């Protein structure tokens, strides 16, 4: 049980007061059902109260129900800072800048795909490199990489890797402005140059999924998102900015060490290294981070292109005929300038989301026109054993959580511990017996991602649904998974 005293202030909302830790500027709030709250690891309580000590933080530091012990912020952490008085922190974004989710739909059904699933998985595994040291088909010069980091997905579309329509269904249309490649190091470009179109490893995956009729919770919203055909096949992607983003975060953590000394800033965790957003270093990190965010959108776009090639090869139809369309693409490791009502006044804030997803409600001009009547799709990745969810954003999220909600199911045990309990080959066979085909670059990596290492995703999703910071639309069940 946590050492911090938290008070339940509303159903599924627990608050730790500013008196709990020296230096807290705002309370910390943990969003969780009583059961999930009791399972929260100690790291969450330490880290979310650490976040509450950062300068310029507004209203409260928030941890989502999928929260767990990370570095700097907990995974599932959300915090909003005054851009004039507050800070920007790579530890509130993660090394994997714009790690995020993309969901594709098809017009294929389970019955059409099942007989060809092994061949489809082999084709996708061959087309989408994954694992340690994997390289994509493109090798970009620094000049080309700079262009891509500014233009994002448009860079891909201009070169034939996708369709212009794809742009409409990506957060920020796949291109965040204020991206300046001059603020990225040569090392960052070197690390990223061969990695576009690769998955990476860890919890990153490409999953073929099915939406069965009993897993459609809101048929109206599902229909707006192009889902609802019985036993419809979808493809879900989870990956980020690869080595380019990792190096940018590494570079600026060291830069911020010096900035903090100069400004007399002290944080409880060195991984919360930060810089005032008004300083040149803070601004430069923001501009470099936006480059990494654009490269992550481009990475998911190139993988989408390869997925379309794979489906076309196996089903002997072009991807248009297969209805392989982007439902949505959304970041869950990022900082963005957004406007929220604070004490009734529209206020510009720098919102950090680390393992948390934007959840904009109906009417927002920042979501695709086709979705404005219902809200933004929220893609929630689960374990390869238990499935994933598609949710929709709400006005309550705008009012209560800086337009944010959860991003996944959340871990309950470390990778080291999971490997002690599960053998990769046994797990692969067990999944196959349950109708889930696995392709992986690492069996030990597979074991680390076993379902027992994660919280019950349905309970986690039910919590945000009940809080109304996003609402259930459909659940997607895995039938094939590629893990790095």
């Amino acid at each position, binding site marked *: 049980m946590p050492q911090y005293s938290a008070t339940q202030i509303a159903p599924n909302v627990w608050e730790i007061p500013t008196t709990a830790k020296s230096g807290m500027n705002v309370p910390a709030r943990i969003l969780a059902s009583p059961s999930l709250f009791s399972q929260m690891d100690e790291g969450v309580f330490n880290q979310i109260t650490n976040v509450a000590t950062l300068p310029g933080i507004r209203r409260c530091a928030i941890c989502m129900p999928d929260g767990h012990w990370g570095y700097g912020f907990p995974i599932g952490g959300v915090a909003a800072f005054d851009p004039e008085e507050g800070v920007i922190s790579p530890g509130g974004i993660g090394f994997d800048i714009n790690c995020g989710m993309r969901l594709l739909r098809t017009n294929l059904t389970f019955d059409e795909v099942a007989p060809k699933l092994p061949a489809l998985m082999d084709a996708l595994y061959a087309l989408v490199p994954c694992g340690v040291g994997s390289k994509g088909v493109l090798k970009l010069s620094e000049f080309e990489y700079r262009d891509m980091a500014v233009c994002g997905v448009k860079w891909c579309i201009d070169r034939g890797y996708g369709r212009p329509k794809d742009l409409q269904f990506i957060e920020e249309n796949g291109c965040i402005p204020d991206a300046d490649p001059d603020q990225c190091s040569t090392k960052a470009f*070197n690390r990223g140059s061969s990695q576009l179109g690769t998955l990476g*490893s*860890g919890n990153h995956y490409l999953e073929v999924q099915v939406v069965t009729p009993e897993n459609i919770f809101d048929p109206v919203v599902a229909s707006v998102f192009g889902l609802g055909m019985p036993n419809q096949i979808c493809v879900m992607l989870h990956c980020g900015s690869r080595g380019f983003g990792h190096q940018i975060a*590494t570079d600026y953590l060291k830069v911020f060490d010096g900035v903090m000394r100069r400004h007399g800033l002290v944080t409880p965790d060195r991984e919360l290294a930060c810089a005032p957003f008004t300083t040149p270093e803070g601004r430069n990190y923001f501009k470099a981070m936006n480059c990494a965010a654009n490269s992550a959108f481009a990475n998911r776009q190139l993988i989408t292109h390869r997925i379309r090639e794979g489906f076309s090869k196996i089903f002997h139809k072009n991807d248009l005929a297969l209805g392989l369309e982007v439902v949505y693409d959304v970041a869950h490791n990022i900082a963005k300038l957004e406007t929220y009502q604070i004490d009734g006044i529209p206020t510009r804030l720098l919102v950090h989301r680390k393992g948390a997803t934007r959840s904009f409600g109906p009417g927002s001009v920042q979501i695709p026109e086709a979705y404005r009547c219902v809200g933004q799709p929220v893609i929630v990745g689960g374990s390869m054993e238990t499935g994933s969810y598609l949710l929709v954003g709400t006005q309550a999220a705008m009012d209560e959580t800086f337009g944010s909600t959860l991003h996944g199911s959340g871990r309950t045990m470390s*990778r080291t511990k999971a490997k002690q309990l599960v053998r990769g080959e046994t797990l692969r066979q067990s999944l196959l017996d349950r109708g889930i085909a696995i392709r992986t670059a690492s069996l*030990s990596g597979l074991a680390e991602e076993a379902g027992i290492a994660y919280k019950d995703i349905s309970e986690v999703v039910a919590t945000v649904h009940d809080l109304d910071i996003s609402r259930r639309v459909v659940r997607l069940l895995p039938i094939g998974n590629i893990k790095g």
Partner: protein
Amino acid sequence: MTYSYEFLPNVALADTAFRVKADTWSQLFTGASEALTSVMVDLADLEQKRRIPIDLTATTVDELLYDWLSELVYLKDAEAFLLRSANIDVLSGAIWQLRGELVGDTIEPKRQKLGQDVKAVTYHLFDVMQKGPDYIAQVVLDI
């Protein structure tokens, strides 16, 4: 000269934490690099095919260890290089220095049992110390 390392099962759930103990600074750095590499590959599968000179300086020992491990993560992505053995000396003083040679292999999934890709070395719970005759470091890697 010896070193040993252990992975910590109850720290940083999404990532990987390890603690290294050695009897010199050089061995501590060597042990930490081996722990890092063992997350990414079965060390027995690595051959000693490539040699890369290295020379790093820092103002503190913890900064030097952070830079050392981060450099190995960088070489994994930029050069597809995985370290098999480190012939290095760590020199203390007003400026800390690590110099020597990296010996290792190119990533080739067909002949190597690969593990998890390390994204970065974090500062979370990062600790380097000398305690009596022991040199100790704790590191959390972002996976």
